[in-house]
């Protein structure tokens, strides 16, 4: 049974329908949100922890969700924030260890047994990882999720013009990386 977001929210507001409605919500959006996180943090175990945190936060705050924005936009925002916060914490830890997150993520891409695709796809992943985090997020939202700029603007609270410029720069950098020497 497929319910619209509005119907799911209405069921969630009924005390005896909370679990059922939330279950439907998780099933509806879990994959999209998981991939948002996974593409940012690369590692499955980290992604698994983060996606669970995201749903716990959604459960805690769904009551206060106001239908000013789309539910998906709101969920996307929580997921992206969770992943970026995780990466920032990791970066702070790495500052103490004289290492960097980017090379760690690159290594994970190379050695991840769950990673598929040819050499060019692998190179694309490494190119994406080389981008600054927020630019990476912008690129992924547009390139993989094909999100319209207006919706991206709602998620990231950034102007459409700035997002277009950021995507443009990101795609250019990736092209340079792909056509450059290994």
């Amino acid at each position: 049974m497929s319910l619209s977001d509005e119907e799911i929210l209405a069921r969630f507001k009924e005390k005896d329908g909370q679990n059922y409605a939330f279950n439907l919500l998780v099933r509806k959006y879990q994959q999209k949100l998981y991939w948002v996180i996974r593409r940012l943090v690369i590692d499955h175990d980290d992604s698994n922890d983060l996606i669970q945190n995201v749903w716990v936060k959604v459960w805690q705050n769904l009551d206060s969700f106001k239908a000013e924005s789309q539910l998906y936009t709101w969920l996307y925002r929580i997921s992206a924030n969770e992943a970026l916060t995780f990466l920032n914490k990791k970066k702070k830890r790495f500052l103490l260890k004289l290492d960097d997150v980017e090379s760690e993520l690159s290594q994970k891409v190379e050695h991840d047994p769950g990673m598929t695709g040819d050499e060019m796809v692998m190179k694309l992943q490494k190119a994406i990882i080389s981008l600054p985090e927020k630019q990476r997020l912008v690129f992924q939202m547009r390139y993989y999720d094909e999100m319209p700029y207006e919706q991206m603007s709602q998620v990231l609270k950034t102007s459409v013009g700035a997002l277009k410029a950021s995507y443009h720069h990101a795609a250019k950098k990736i092209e340079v990386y792909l056509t450059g020497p290994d």
Partner: protein
Amino acid sequence: MEIFKEMEEFDEFRNELEGISPVLSRLPRVNSFKVEDNYFEELPMVVMDRIHARKQRRGIDWSWLLQPKWSVAMAVCMIAVIFGSFLLVRNINTDKPMPVAQVQQLLAEPLSDESVIENVSTDDLVEALANAESTPTDAQKKKAADKKELENYIIDNVDESSIIDAL
């Protein structure tokens, strides 16, 4: 209509990418990451278990106290309680007992009859006089009279032989 809109957005997206990076636009957009089988079938149950475990562990959810309006109210209440406690402690300190040296000095001073009378209230005097009316002497007199009356009654009404039988 929704499909047309999506197609339009896709064309816009493709043209945009082609304009920025022809190499990137020719690459297949595949998801190169994988998850184990059944991961997404099991995830909702894992999430619900975690939420219920958290609810049970917490019991009462106090997170509402962290909301700005409640935290301000709590801060005001705490200030009121601290201020009230301060006043209370100050009042208790003013009722503290007289130092021993001062008490001894007061006891050493001789008291005149006038000062005793001045310090005794009218109520205390009335109570003292009421107690004086029922002195132990009167009570004893009454008891003795009752005893005599009982003896006379026994002598007049009880046969001597029945007392001997009873004993």
